[in-house]
């Protein structure tokens, strides 16, 4: 009997945590299928797919926003990784002057509130004619993207085996071939994890797009924000659910790519 009460207490507490975590998400799902819901009804009085049809109607803009979001995210991954792979290799494996200072520079964007940075990027881009262009949005998404990409790529290259590389060189493999066939495959899971982080960050990015992209370029977060501010809870909820798919999906598989030996080297 004495043991029962603490056990009950633990169960109640875990239940409360579950409600705090999933309650808001359940509320979102309810809104996505609610056709009519007025206070003080605790649940919608009419359920259905009416708003889903409205969101995905050809000219409603959801498909375009989805295409924009995915296209910009992929381009951001390509751009960030193209810069981060050579940089990560050099930082992890080569003799670099001021290495620690350079690592610090790649960390600094995370240490400053980013909103004033985005505001001034937008002001600079205005002068360069980059506001409202895909390239401008890809550049602004690459700022947080590069930070993740460089740090994870550096850790991934630091975890590769130098001896195997030297063996390949001694056996007569060209430098390019050694990098392609020996170094890159070893670093690939870490680089994949970096790409996933950059992709997710870009898909979810709101502030930079808000200043640089709008009103010409609408991504999913911008579409969701506009629907929410317009008081359209159903459309906002449906867009929000679409936004959750890549985040939750990738996070469930990312643990496979981000191995502990790479994680342990981040920041060294």
């Amino acid at each position, binding site marked *: 009997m004495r043991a029962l009460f603490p056990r009950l207490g633990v169960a109640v507490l875990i239940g409360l945590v579950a409600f705090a975590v999933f309650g808001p998400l359940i509320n979102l799902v309810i809104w996505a299928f609610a056709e009519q819901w007025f206070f003080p009804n605790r649940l919608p009085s009419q359920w259905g797919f009416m708003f889903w049809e409205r969101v995905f109607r050809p000219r409603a803009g959801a498909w375009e926003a989805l295409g924009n979001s995915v296209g910009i995210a992929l381009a951001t991954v390509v751009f960030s990784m193209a810069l981060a792979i*050579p940089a990560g290799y050099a930082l992890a494996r080569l003799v670099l002057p001021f290495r620690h200072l350079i690592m610090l520079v790649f960390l600094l964007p995370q240490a400053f509130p980013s909103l004033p940075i985005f505001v001034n990027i937008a002001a600079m881009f205005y002068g360069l004619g980059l506001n409202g262009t895909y390239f401008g949005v890809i550049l602004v998404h690459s700022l947080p993207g590069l930070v993740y990409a460089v740090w994870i790529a550096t850790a991934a290259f630091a975890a590769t085996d130098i001896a195997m590389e030297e063996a390949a060189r001694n056996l007569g493999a060209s*430098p390019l071939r050694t990098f392609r066939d020996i170094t890159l495959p070893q670093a690939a899971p870490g680089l994949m994890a970096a790409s996933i982080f950059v992709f997710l960050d870009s898909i979810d990015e709101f502030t930079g797009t808000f200043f640089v992209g709008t009103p010409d370029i609408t991504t999913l977060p911008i579409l969701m924000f506009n629907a929410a501010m317009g008081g359209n809870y159903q459309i906002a909820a449906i867009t929000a659910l679409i936004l959750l798919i890549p985040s939750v999906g990738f996070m469930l598989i990312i643990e496979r790519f981000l191995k502990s030996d790479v994680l342990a080297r981040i920041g060294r």
Partner: protein
Amino acid sequence: MSLSNASRVSRSPLQNASHTKWYSVALVAPALAAIVFLFAVPLIRSVVTAFIDADGGWTLENISRAVEFYGRDVVFTIVIAVLSLAVIAAISIAIAGYLTLGSTPWAVAALRWLYRWPLFIPFIVAGQTARSFLARNGLMNSMLMEAGLLEPVAAQSFLDWRGLVMTFAWKQVPFVTLLLAGAMASLDRATIESARNLGANRLRCLFEIVLPQVRPTLFVGLILSLVTIMSVLSVPMMIIAGTPNMMTTMMAHRVTYYGDYAVANALGLFSYLLTALVAWFYLRSTLEKEAGK
């Protein structure tokens, strides 16, 4: 471009030690240039613009106007940030502590699975979920009414400072907990076990043995959370209508409605100062501790 760089890379690091420098610099240069263009230049621009008037001369006018127009919002931001960090710290310590010291295996496993979810949810989605969950007819009030804890007439919306604190905490608690639980897991179990054997209860164990050892991790997590709170635009815009609101919203408002970059940048300066101040206190306390050793 990455291909030609790659060929330069693999001239093995050990063999050409004397020649490594120029091409290793060349490999880092493009990424570094991008960071300079996308971060350093805008950062310097934001600080300089805050002190320049319409004719290009130096002035403190923008600062005083920012204080005059947005003083209340600055105070509001500080209060929200402090409250959020306090809530984040308390809940993260509780969860990470239970994950480390908890004695009910199924509860530890359930909590470990549960707590991470909000980490994966974008801020903009968190803002929308909060808007529906914390509203007058939201699920939180419904459940409270269902449980008989709330009269329908007394139901009120939490979409004000409380909603803001709750949403920031909901998003950031998993992040700080993840760091904290990781640090706690790598502690020496022997000390904890011996304290337990000597009769210290779990709460005492947490506060007197575990927590002092992971304090640096806790502070790093809280500082990064502060930077996040000072950066997020969507959540305060979506949760609070009108003023006072967070500085982020006010900067966006100043730029989009008035095109007034000078005052917006003066506000931005305050947000840098606030985070820098907290980071400085943290660094000073760690340095003092190092010196004291």
